């Protein structure tokens, strides 16, 4: 299978098929990235399109330094930050999070979303990039401008916090 970097370099040279291949590879993961961070699915789709468009229009400036995946998610993170700044800092709270009695009846994704919402923003972002985007510690550190050791320790902290919330009392050592 051709690597992402080869595909983007082929696209730089004019191969439309290379771009199609990249698009097919990252369409769902990228949409999922935005969907998990934004409340509005339509807005997530818009930003996913903008992300691919940004790759399309700036492919001539692309240089294979940190890998295409980091490049793509770097654009995505910037788009999310810009969108949040535009929308303000007021994030609508999920009503179910305030009702502990409802926890047992909720869908697992809502549980996870709830638990993630209680983490610090930076820890949450690190955890999500690791768990969902499958980025390495180095890639995460490059995107968020953090040392690798900091990424590791904060990821561990986030996982421990989630462990307490998602697996209460059962696995306490």
């Amino acid at each position, binding site marked *: 299978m051709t690597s992402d970097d080869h595909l983007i370099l082929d696209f730089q040279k004019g191969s439309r098929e290379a771009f199609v291949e990249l698009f097919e590879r990252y369409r769902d993961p990228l949409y999922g990235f935005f969907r998990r961070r934004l409340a509005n699915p339509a807005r997530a789709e818009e930003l996913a399109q903008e992300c691919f468009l940004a790759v399309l229009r700036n492919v001539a400036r692309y240089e294979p330094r940190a890998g295409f995946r980091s490049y793509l998610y770097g654009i995505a993170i910037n788009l999310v930050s810009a969108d949040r700044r535009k929308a303000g800092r007021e994030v609508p709270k999920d009503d179910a999070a305030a009702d502990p009695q409802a926890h047992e009846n909720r869908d697992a994704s809502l549980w996870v979303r709830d638990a993630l919402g209680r983490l610090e923003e930076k820890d949450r972002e690190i955890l999500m990039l690791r768990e969902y985007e499958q980025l*390495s510690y180095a890639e995460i550190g490059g995107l968020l401008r953090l040392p690798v050791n900091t990424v590791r320790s904060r990821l561990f902290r986030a996982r421990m916090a989630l462990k307490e919330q998602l697996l209460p009392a059962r696995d306490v050592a």
Partner: protein
Amino acid sequence: MNRSVQHAFEHEEIMAYLDGELEPGRASSLAAHLDHCAECRLMAAGLRRVSDQLAAWEGGPAPSSLSTILEKAGREQTPRKSSALGRKLRRFETGRDWLRARPWAWGVAGAVATALLFVTTVSVLQYSRDRGIASSKTAPYKQWLQTDSAIPGNALTRKKAESAVPHAPAPTPPITDGRSPLKTDSNGLLHGLGDHAGDAFANDGQPPVDAGSMGKLRASEQAEDAAVNGRQFLGLTMLEPGAEAPMVARTAALSVVAKDFAPVEAAVKEITARHHGYIGELSTSAPKDAARNLSATLRIPVPQLDGAIAELKQLGRVEQESQSGEEVSKQYIDLAVRLKNARVTEQRLVDVLQTKTGKVKDILDVEKEIARVRGEIEQMEADQRDLKTRVDYATLQLTVSEDFRASLEVAPPSTATRLHNAVVQGYHDVIESLIGFAVWLLAVGPALLIWGSLLFFPARWAWKRWRRTAAAKASPAGAA
């Protein structure tokens, strides 16, 4: 959670191992450890379950409408093939983006550019000024050199010419009219007002000429007339008619360090006398525990100057030597013209005095005017003589310093005195520093107070606002 002491692996390392981020050697050791350690296996299992539960939250497949991006990809301009120009453009754009992300870099770049421009401008201006000064300084000296080479033995020649054209004709019996003790010479020019009657015609040191030199007197008048036209001047025209010989006043400076200072003064006097010069000024200083110095202004005839300098250089090691020349031709010509005009005026006044018969008041007025003109004439003659002397005699500024060797004092100055002096000095320094601080405070304090008051509340408001913003950022803003 308590961990037993035999664990060589942190829980973070277990997590990194599960993520595939542990170094290979360490990873294999941990894998072996997990086979034996239930606690670590439990931790690993717990971390896996967290990941499994997180995976339950799926983002869902992307909508099909997202594929419209492919149509746009077809319409968008085909990206350029990578080329050297393209790579350069990308590097330029990368650099531009870097600058955009760091606005402070523009300020730094602007400050550096301004500083470089300022330094360059000052250097260029300084260089141009130095070149201008150097050329203006060397011009008269070069002119003097050319003059010397064109007319060998210039000063001596001028002296001979001047002796052939005397300023002082032979004294004639005074012509008095009973009203004022005036004397007229063979040209009818008046002398005697303010003069010492006995040596009125020998005031420049030149030997007086006998009565048989009337023809030379006529020649002197013709030379003065020629000077009016500005082409020739007295003393130089007789030898080089048609050739302009500028008059240059030479100056020189010489600084010497002498090992043996004792005979220096006598040597300077002897050298000066031998070269027919004279000492304008001489002073010596001999401070305690320091080098002795001799400073002198010597007037040396110009033809003898080089020889005198060569001999003075033998007194010790030459530290500095310089020579320069100032052309005074214009001043001399100007003086000659003014002198002639003044003499004509004086003669006319005398004629008026002798012919006019009128009131006593008018006669007194004419006599007063004659006295004034006479005074001007004598001043101009003195200036002319001074100029000639400056041209004939070069001015040499001589400085001789002793090559001082400090003597070793076996018994140093009193320690108690030194300590006392140090204490007094220290006290003075403390007082000065306190006073200086108080002065500074009084000078700067009011302005600091006013600006501090004006800026305190806005700064406090900005700080509080920033704190609120930072606190809002830190609070969990959950993803939808």
